[in-house]
């Protein structure tokens, strides 16, 4: 039974990757399990400069999910490369995906070039879809033209595979994925969170400090399946599927829709052992559904 997949030329022992922003820089999860069972890790979203992120509260509950408005809290690209990734490398030997956000094309280019030159980084995920920052972020991901522009600029300075992370808060995600492919992207990852909001009935004001936040968790899974399915029809580059994945069955469902690998986000926050358990359950689920080679099922529902 084979769980190996090839993601943009990088072999993963299985397709399960903790999603950026739900796994820190990974090494703290060694308190829960040996993280070397993971397919890869997409580390916390990183900007050129250190960011504190948004004011509190940053978290709200939702039916079958949660809203977050963390706002890219991170120590900045140099600290990430100098301290966080070496710390992760001490306990982890599988691929590392840097996750880069920015507020201008120049910032994306600068951070990606630094990540590309770092020995600990295997792939670069470029987040043009963060809903929780007020300049840049998601705005680059809502238009095909700006998605194309960022992709081209980043690809010009990167030798490692570049994966563009897309927002679901658009009318036509397939056209944006196509623009990324046209710009030279090696892959796309989707979906980031759905822009959402809760109101505190006691104060009668928005519950989150940032007013809106990103909805993730099982609630968004059927939207993720649909978008991965649509994007698979539109592009030839690999897709990392994500959005509410919580079980080995969900991994298989997203791969059938068109994903080559799968990220697990909110589930890590509900259960620190989620990724380990999903990976452990994969062979059993494969057997149940008569799958012998996971790498062969991508797009099988088309």
């Amino acid at each position, binding site marked *: 039974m084979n769980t190996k997949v090839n993601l943009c030329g990088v072999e993963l022992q299985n397709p399960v990757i903790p999603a950026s*922003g*739900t*796994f*820190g820089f990974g090494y*703290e*999860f060694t*308190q*829960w399990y040996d993280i070397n069972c993971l397919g890869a890790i997409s580390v*916390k979203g990183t900007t050129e400069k250190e960011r*504190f*992120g948004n004011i*509190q*509260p*940053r*978290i*709200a*509950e*939702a*039916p*079958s*999910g*949660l809203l*977050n408005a*963390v706002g890219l*809290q991170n120590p900045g690209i140099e600290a990430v490369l100098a301290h966080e990734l070496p710390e992760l490398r001490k306990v982890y030997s599988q691929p590392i995906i840097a996750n880069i956000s920015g507020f201008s094309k120049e910032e994306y280019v600068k951070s990606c070039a630094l990540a590309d030159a770092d020995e600990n980084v295997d792939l670069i995920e470029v987040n043009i879809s963060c809903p929780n920052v007020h300049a840049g972020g998601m705005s680059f991901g809502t238009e095909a033209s700006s998605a194309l522009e960022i992709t081209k600029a980043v690809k010009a300075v990167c030798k490692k595979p570049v994966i563009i992370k897309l927002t679901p808060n658009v009318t036509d995600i397939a056209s944006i994925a196509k623009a990324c492919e046209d710009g030279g992207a090696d892959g796309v990852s989707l979906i980031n969170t759905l822009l959402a909001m809760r109101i505190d009935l006691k104060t009668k004001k928005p519950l989150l400090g940032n007013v809106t936040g990103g909805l993730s*968790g*099982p609630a968004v899974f059927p939207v993720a399946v649909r978008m991965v399915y649509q994007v698979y029809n539109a592009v030839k580059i690999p897709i990392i599927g994500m959005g509410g994945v919580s079980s080995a069955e969900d991994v298989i469902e997203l791969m059938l829709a068109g994903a080559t690998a799968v990220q697990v986000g*909110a589930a*890590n*926050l*509900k*259960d*620190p*052992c989620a990724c380990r358990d999903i990976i452990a359950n994969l062979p059993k689920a494969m057997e149940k559904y008569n799958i012998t080679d996971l790498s062969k099922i991508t797009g099988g529902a088309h």
Partner: protein
Amino acid sequence: MKKSIFEIIENRSIAKDVCLMRLTGDTSAITAPGQFVNIELEGFYLRRPISVCDWEYGVLTIIYKVVGKGTEKMSAMTAGEKLELLTGLGNGYDMTLSGERPLLVGGGAGVPPMYGLCRRLTAQGKRPTVILGFNTAADVFFAEEFKALGANVIVTTVDGGVGVKGFVTDAMKELEYSYFYSCGPEPMLKALYNASATEGQLSFEERMGCGFGACMGCTCKTKYGNKRICKDGPVLKKEEVVW
């Protein structure tokens, strides 16, 4: 930190909208008073973080306020039902700094962790004074339990229905103490921070995502840098607090 299944031994109301639950399970990850557990409830995506009131080998006591649908659901559970808990979360109180006559201040839902702390401090031969602050007489709980530990206990109520009328800080004025430990609503902590004559530790609440440091959902600024309330806290030293 551990993830494991606990079984409810008892679950009962001890004051208005306040319940005490005792559970049996693996408590080995709990290393300090002031830590918390994070409880999975069917039908809710996020776990409920509840401070540890007390623990011993195989037995955990929590006291929780019924504030929403999750804690309402908890309050309806009965002995024999099972819950999945993450245990040993947060830093807890540093007891090495207490001195001989520490002051323990708990307000409302901040009272429970003071109990496990008080029991351990008295076991070490310290002589704690405990101030327990509530809104009204109907809200008061655990005053007798603290007295049974041998502590000097002062109850305050905002409306004066029981004990000293006013806030916890009103009961502090004449007291002598070597150090303070506190847990309660933020306005109480702030008043205490200003009124306190010594160094001390304050336990903070924030809306949490994971409860174990992964999501940065509960980060706050301190003089020693950004701290995650769930992992680097919930207990901060007075010297590092930024209001």
